[in-house]
């Protein structure tokens, strides 16, 4: 639009300059013509010098809150890029079709800069953010040079940490001794359980670094173990096939799972969560803190995104809670309560469960 507007003005000016034989106006037209050419060249130079990538390959956010994300912008070229636009597309795996797209504007001087933006996710789960197209404008925003880019970032959106109000009359009835069998656990240590994962600080022991998570996230994370703890409660996840294809349904399940675990943690030391991956391989992980819960949720998000859950419906383990994807909460075979997707938030907030 600006280009069209300017072209029109230049044509009018040129016409009048010629008709009135006005050298100053002709010089003005000529200068504007030269500037347009220079602007076109500059937009190409700016494009060549500008590169963008996400500051972190993995980000976390809390559902329905604004979370800041950053894109690192590196510019090595003349002057400063005073206007560029980048297109961000958001996918919800495993679907390939984009869910949402947005163009963000920014500017950057020579060297490293950053483009910050806020993201507001309405439901839990794993989101993939793609930087797909960069438009770099010249100094006067007359011409833009496009560039295809392919930068990706995962955003794990967790529930808000609200706990279900559960009153256990005799907690021991629902729990196990911690010194029971210790099958191989992908997250836990052989002799100690991880209490939480936190960022690495100077002075921490190197052997406690969580190398897997650090490699995935690009930041150093440290495992904190706890020697002593109370009994643990077992929670089986009854996940049905097809679960991963409905983001809203998936979000409801994870919100309830989070609230249930947080509620149980108020009465017990650890919640041991079981689920079945492909080939009916049963896997478990202990959640003793919010950090551990988030780690488990992230793992479940990835499994859901890949569709690697196996159908575990109809299995009712003994002396354990179960939560199925229809939002039914069971103790052994008996249904404690079936949550409705419509009133889930209210039930979590207001309903008290006395067991």
């Amino acid at each position, binding site marked *: 639009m*600006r280009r069209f507007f300017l072209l029109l003005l230049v044509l009018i000016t040129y016409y009048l300059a010629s008709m009135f034989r006005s050298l100053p106006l002709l010089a003005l037209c000529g200068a504007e013509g030269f*500037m347009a050419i220079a602007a076109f060249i500059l937009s190409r130079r700016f494009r060549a010098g500008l590169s963008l990538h996400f500051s972190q390959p993995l980000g976390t956010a809390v559902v329905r809150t604004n979370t800041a994300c950053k894109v690192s912008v590196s510019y090595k070229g003349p002057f400063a890029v*005073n206007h560029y636009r980048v297109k961000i597309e958001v996918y919800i795996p495993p679907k390939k079709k984009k869910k949402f797209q947005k163009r963000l504007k920014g500017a950057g001087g020579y060297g490293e800069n950053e483009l910050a*933006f806020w993201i507001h996710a309405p439901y839990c789960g794993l989101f993939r953010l793609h930087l797909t197209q960069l438009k770099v404008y010249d100094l*006067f925003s007359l011409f833009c040079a496009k560039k295809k880019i392919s930068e990706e970032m995962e955003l794990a959106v967790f529930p808000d940490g609200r706990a279900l109000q559960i009153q256990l009359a005799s907690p021991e009835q629902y729990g196990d001794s911690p010194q029971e069998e210790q099958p191989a656990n992908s997250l836990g240590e052989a002799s100690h359980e991880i209490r939480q994962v936190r960022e690495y600080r100077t002075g921490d022991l190197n052997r406690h670094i969580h190398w897997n998570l650090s490699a995935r996230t690009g930041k150093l994370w440290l495992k904190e173990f706890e020697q002593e703890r109370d009994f643990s409660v077992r929670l089986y996840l009854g996940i049905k096939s097809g679960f991963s294809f409905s983001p809203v349904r998936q979000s409801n399940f994870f919100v309830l799972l989070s609230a249930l675990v947080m509620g149980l943690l108020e009465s017990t030391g650890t919640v041991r969560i079981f689920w079945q991956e492909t080939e009916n391989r049963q896997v478990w992980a202990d959640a003793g803190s919010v950090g551990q819960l988030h780690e488990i949720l992230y793992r479940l998000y990835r499994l859901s995104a890949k569709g690697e859950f196996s159908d575990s419906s109809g299995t009712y383990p003994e002396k354990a809670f179960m939560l199925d994807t229809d939002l039914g909460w069971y103790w052994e075979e008996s249904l404690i309560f079936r949550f409705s997707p419509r009133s889930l938030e209210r039930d979590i907030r207001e309903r008290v469960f006395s067991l």
Partner: protein
Amino acid sequence: MAKAKLRIYPDKTESSRSLLTAEPLFLLSGVLGILLLLRQIESISFDLWVIFPVSVLLCAALWYCFYRSISLLAGVLGLLLVVCGFAVFRLRDLLPKQLWQIVTAVSHNPESASMEVTETILLFAVVIMILMFWLECLGRCHGLLFFLMMALLLFSELMKINITIGALLFISLFQWGFWAVRLPAGSKGSSGIKIKAGIASVLLVSAAFAAACLAVSRFSQTLYTPAYRAEEFVYRMLSGLSNGAGSSYVTGQISRGNHYETGTEHLTLTVSAKPSETLYLRGFSGGDYSGETWLPSNEEEIYQNMAEILQWDTWSNIIPGLYQSMYYVMNENMPEDNRREPLTLTIRHTGSAPGDYFTPYYSRFINELEEEGHGYTYQFFEQGDITLDWENVADYFAQQRDWYLSIRQAYSEQAHFFYTRTPVNRIPRMEKLIRENPRSTPYQITSFILRELHNSASYSTTPGWMPFNEDIVEYFLFESHQGYCVHFASAAVLMYRLYGIPARYASGYAVPPSAFSRQEDGTWQAVVTDKFAHAWAEIFQSDYGWSPVEVTPASDGSMTVQYPGFSGLHLKRSQKDWSRENSGSDFRFGSNKSASSQLLGISLDGIRFQEHRNLFLFIGFGILYSLLFLPLFLDYRRLRKLCRLESAGCREIFRQFLNMLQFCGIASGYDGSEPNFVPVVLEGAPFISQEELSRMLEIVGNAAFGPELPGELQNEFIFRIYQKTARRLYAGLTWHKKVVFRFVKAFW
């Protein structure tokens, strides 16, 4: 929840306002550009050295207030409006006069005398600065201002206000610079980027202008051509749509634009023998000159006056017929040895304007054709066949000759009255030219006019448009120096009239002999298109009546003039000769400059001192402006110092803390290491607690001698104590110490 949408939105937390940025400079550039344009209006003058500094000061003040807080800006804007209102009230007698002077100067009224309008321009500068600041910085609508600035430049050209390269550059910097520094909201490090983008835009605009000026000064004529071609194409297309050109060939309208031909057929001429010279067919004769138009000659009034003079009473109605054929009949009745055979001309209208009549010179109307269409027949003599001798006529014709002499005398008196009138106030430069070059005989006058036209103007059908506030003929003769037949003819007629020779502007067709081709029946025929449309001057000589004078040069620049009673003049010179003659002429034409000199000659001449300016006044105003700027500068310096101090580290803050205490007469001579330092300071500054001071000393001691540098929290603590102490000490100072404390020492 299912209906909730994912949202991404930009982070706009970083403020885009920064004191150090290019925006105020570009704003100032725009205002200065407008002032330089105003400076070029003739007949007004104002003191740039008063208005420029005020503009600079105002721009700096507005930006500073904008940077500090919007509420402060609102207060200052309100105050400015009040001051402007007060100024308008105080200058209520002067401002209307100055405004009227500016309006008349813009409209190029030749009667307006020069006037000083500094007060009005100053008020205008203040108002325009406020408006532009409002639109740019608060409204962020640069597009509108870009358009308005462009419109201002175009309007200046239309009004023939000389656009200096300085004004053009300043305005362009404003137009393009703001686009460059207008960053997306929330851009990190926007201040630095703006400065870089601003510098880049200045470099780019300057380089582009330098290149454009070079190109334009060398190739201006080539660059104009595409626009003329485009205009010609559109003109022909529109003419085709309207089925041929209009009847502009029989009006006295003097075109302000270019002239294009369409090839439309207008007339078919049939002559009994091939003409030996150009056949002039007059469709319009001009009477009074009204600036843009020649009004039709009022021959009816002349004939009425002639009837009264001649007192022919019942025969008065035959006077027009007698007069119109008088010279033809006289020539026809010359003695046999001088007599020539007349030609018979039949005119058929094939195109537009069928109601008009085109008349050859020295002719007699024969009859209307009875065939379809509009046609009529004349008999006429060519100019070369006019052999009038009023004394020697045959006896049978003596009586009629005597009547003709009476008519000739009466018409001559009337022609001298009606056709020597000129609106002198419209053409002052031409009047001056004639006054400074007196000529007595018709031969000298014609020679002078032809030479002036030949030397001062060249023929071009694309002279461009002429400004709307200038007289066309004066502009043609003294400024543009380019034109075509209507301009040459109009200029010649006015000059003839100024010399007292009756002259008329005539338009119609000029058909050369080469246009005629022989027909099977022995006649000669020519198809007249708009290519033959022409305008010329005609002068009245008692012996020969109205004769056409060809004052338009040929395409090669040569001029050949011959008419009855004039022995002929042929002018042929190259362009080089023309330039040389022109520079040596008695009369210096207004602005006959080459392209490059026109461009370079206008460079920044607006910023120069006038001879009558007093240097002491200039210095005085310089000091005054410096004093006005001083508070802004000092406050800016204070803020910068405090910013640097905040990030300087605890030792630097403590050093400044000691300086501040000592300035207030507390702990003079102490450096903080003395054992009684704490009680001494607490005595002078009881609002600091002992714990705070002790911790401060401990942190500074650790910073100086400890193994680790203090952290951010410790630095913040020191700076907080410093600020608290400064605020409390400042409150207790006298006013002059407060000024030094705050603005000179920059403690708080």
